[in-house]
């Protein structure tokens, strides 16, 4: 079965330190990969995507993500965390085959950045 795993329910980071939010996927073929962020009581906002090309993708608010095909991973990273980065982060995968209903989300990882 196709799936997306975010192995950490919560990630705690001190402000100014680098952060990583992990995502692995199990999808046939070459999927399209996305990260979304959700602030309290809000909908999801797009952060970045990987379609093809350079394995390191840069997105909004200083975030980047590294695609690793051999490890089927798409980890979200930021060199220096801000308290305002505290939010819920979702990894999503869209297989290249199939319709839009095949967008598969992970369970989400709560990022807490402490001053």
């Amino acid at each position, binding site marked *: 079965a196709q799936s997306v795993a975010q192995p950490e329910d919560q990630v705690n980071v001190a402000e100014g330190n680098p952060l990583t939010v992990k995502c692995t996927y199990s999808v046939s073929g070459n999927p399209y990969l996305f990260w979304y962020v959700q602030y309290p*009581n809000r909908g999801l906002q797009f952060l970045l995507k990987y379609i093809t090309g350079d394995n390191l993708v840069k997105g909004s608010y200083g975030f980047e993500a590294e695609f690793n095909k051999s490890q089927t991973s798409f980890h979200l990273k930021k060199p220096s965390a801000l308290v305002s980065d505290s939010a819920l982060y979702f990894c999503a995968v869209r297989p290249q085959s199939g319709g839009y*209903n095949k967008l598969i*989300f992970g369970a*989400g990882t709560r990022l807490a950045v402490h001053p």
Partner: protein
Amino acid sequence: DVKVTQSSRYLVKRTGEKVFLECVQDMDHENMFWYRQDPGLGLRLIYFSYDVKMKEKGDIPEGYSVSREKKERFSLILESASTNQTSMYLCASIPSGLVTTYIYFGEGSWLTVV
């Protein structure tokens, strides 16, 4: 900017009531979705629609129905609300033909069934 509007942000309904959640998008997108978000479960697709009057079941359609009479509006209907339908509901839209673009989400509707 694309805007997906969910008119009801917070609702409290009684068990057995019929509930309507409305969603409107202003960018002429063909595809619209209803997701349910629960802690630890992420987003689960309830229904989606790829055209007016067209709909398809997602992963968890039981207890829900949808209506799409106009392109910009996609309604989620709980025929007889139950307490296990207490959740956050997210509407989303995406244009056809742009397979690499991302989904636009509404702000969410928090439904509590008592």
